[in-house]
């Protein structure tokens, strides 16, 4: 098998034994990337940087100084600022922007010897669930069942497509309302959104700061553990980053969950849920039970209010965060007409630079924060958010170790199939994922099987705050039991 198809764990071991060089491993990914343009996953390729980093990694490997990610070729979501490399969060408003600094996450990855292959497609400013809201055009799901091109999900759609198609060994993602877990589910890969504060947000283009959290997207749970190890940790440059010790995530993968209590939230069994999804979920429950876990029916009574809460809070924070795109300090500035002043400059720049969904969310946020509506919408949403968080706290206080739930209402849909719909229809994609962002909890997506159409379906496990180690072990058990090994047939 070509080296680009390897897992991070397999590549790490082969690199350390010097069975392959980091340069050769990187070359096999660069070849796959050039052959994968139809997926539109990599939007800025950085082969020179990759080969330079690979050569440096080979030197470290030869010297016996090789952290887990040393020499591992990765894709980086376009939302991470990377020094001297376009970083535009898939927005025209940041066209031409090349940061003069490196995000903390990419600094840490590079410090551990990781190789950057390029920047990955996404929904503009991470606002979307299909990757169709991108200035680069949509990334395409490597899974295909007929003539239609399917969405890889969003917002980390390029990351998901690239990992599923073996263009890279792993990719960074960010998850504000499901943007790691939903695309992971649509492409049959693994992705973890860590506890809020576990991974630094410094140098990550902000969408909704109280919800945004970066995490790895990988082929296996073990790879997620190795990758997260490098990303996680306290960063003085992010005031919300937690000064809490990072355990050894890979060492936590014991495969033993006997006696652990897995909660099954009854409110996630929503009206109109497909029998296929119910069967998938029941299967997951049976797998964990067979592994010796205790299955407990739990209630999270405010679940149904998570989505409207999210769609007040996230746009409110976005309207504030995105105020910085004014055409003055970086990015796009509109051509001005004679007599235009600074207000026209702002208004034209932002109308040209932001896509329709971003404009919509900024305006919704502006409205809910405006005088007279602040209490009715924004403050009420913050109070409901406290109740959603309390639901989880009560479940964990009752001894629940993790919660098993669906990720998406269905498998991947066709590109364009929801683009003319009411925006709210697209928002419903996030119905199972936003709750844990609101509560700040970690969640991991694990591929569990194929649906009747032949497309991957995943389940998510939601963990206690700061217990990514335990959560990944539960995910590892689910992964081993499900034995999901299907890969998309190469058409690109």
């Amino acid at each position, binding site marked *: 098998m070509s080296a680009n198809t390897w897992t991070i764990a397999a590549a790490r071991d082969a690199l350390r034994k010097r069975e392959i060089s980091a340069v050769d491993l990187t070359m096999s990914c660069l070849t796959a990337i050039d052959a994968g343009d139809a997926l539109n996953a990599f939007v800025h390729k950085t082969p020179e940087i990759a080969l330079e980093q690979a050569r440096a990694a080979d030197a470290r490997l030869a010297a016996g100084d090789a952290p887990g990610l040393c020499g591992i070729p990765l894709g980086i979501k376009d939302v991470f600022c990377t020094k001297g490399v376009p970083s535009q969060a898939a927005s025209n408003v940041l066209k031409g922007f090349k940061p003069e600094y490196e995000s903390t996450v990419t600094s840490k990855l590079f410090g551990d010897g990781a190789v950057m292959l390029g920047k990955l497609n996404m929904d503009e400013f991470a606002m979307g669930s299909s990757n169709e809201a991108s200035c680069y055009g949509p990334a395409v799901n490597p899974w295909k069942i007929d003539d239609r091109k399917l969405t890889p999900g969003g917002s980390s759609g390029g990351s998901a497509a690239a990992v599923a198609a073996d263009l890279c060994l792993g990719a960074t993602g960010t998850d504000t309302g499901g943007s790691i877990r939903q695309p992971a589910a649509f492409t049959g890969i693994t992705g973890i959104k860590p506890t809020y504060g576990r991974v630094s947000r410094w140098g990550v283009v902000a969408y909704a700061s*109280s919800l945004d959290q970066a995490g790895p997207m990988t082929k296996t749970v073990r790879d997620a553990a190795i990758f997260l190890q490098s990303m996680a940790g306290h960063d003085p440059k992010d005031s919300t980053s937690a000064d809490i010790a990072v355990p050894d995530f890979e060492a936590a993968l014991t495969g033993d969950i006997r006696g652990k209590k897995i909660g099954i939230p009854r409110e996630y069994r929503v009206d109109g849920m497909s029998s296929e999804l119910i069967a998938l979920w029941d299967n997951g429950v049976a797998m964990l039970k067979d592994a010796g876990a205790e299955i407990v029916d739990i209630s999270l009574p405010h679940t149904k209010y998570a989505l409207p809460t999210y769609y007040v809070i996230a746009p409110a924070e976005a309207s504030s965060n995105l105020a910085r795109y004014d055409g*003055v300090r970086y990015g796009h500035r509109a051509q001005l007409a004679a007599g235009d002043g600074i207000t026209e*400059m702002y208004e034209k720049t932002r109308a040209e630079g932001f896509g329709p969904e971003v404009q919509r969310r900024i305006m919704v946020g502006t409205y809910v924060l405006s005088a007279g509506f602040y209490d009715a919408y924004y403050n009420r949403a913050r109070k409901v958010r406290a109740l959603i968080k309390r639901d989880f706290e009560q479940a964990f206080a009752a001894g629940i170790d993790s919660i098993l739930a669906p990720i998406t209402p269905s498998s991947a849909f066709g590109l364009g199939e929801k683009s003319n719909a009411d925006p709210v229809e697209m928002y419903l994609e996030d119905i199972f994922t936003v709750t844990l962002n609101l509560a700040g909890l970690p969640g991991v997506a694990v591929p569990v099987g194929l649906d009747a159409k032949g497309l991957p379906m995943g389940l998510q496990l939601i963990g206690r705050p700061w217990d990514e180690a335990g959560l990944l072990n539960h995910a590892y058990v689910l992964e081993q039991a499900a034995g999901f090994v299907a890969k998309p047939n190469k058409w690109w």
Partner: protein
Amino acid sequence: MSIDIDTARKVAKLARIRVEEANLPALATQLSGILGFMEQLNEVNVDGIEPMTSVTPMRLKRRVDVVTDGNIQEQILKNAPDAREGFFAVPKVVE
């Protein structure tokens, strides 16, 4: 809460996003749909609930009040659409 065209125009103005008059009715309809969806929150009893301010209770870190960088004018101006003589340049703002 239904958003009329005047409100849509006002919101666009506050957000500093130029929206053509012809596009305001569609915008108003979309915003109304989204806000209608949020109305569900009115069903929740939030009496006595404190708004959530932080995800995990922790004291916001304070750093020592010292300069940790500086003398990077060139880097700061490097991505500016219009920078002249060490400044960001914008259209005239004083009458």
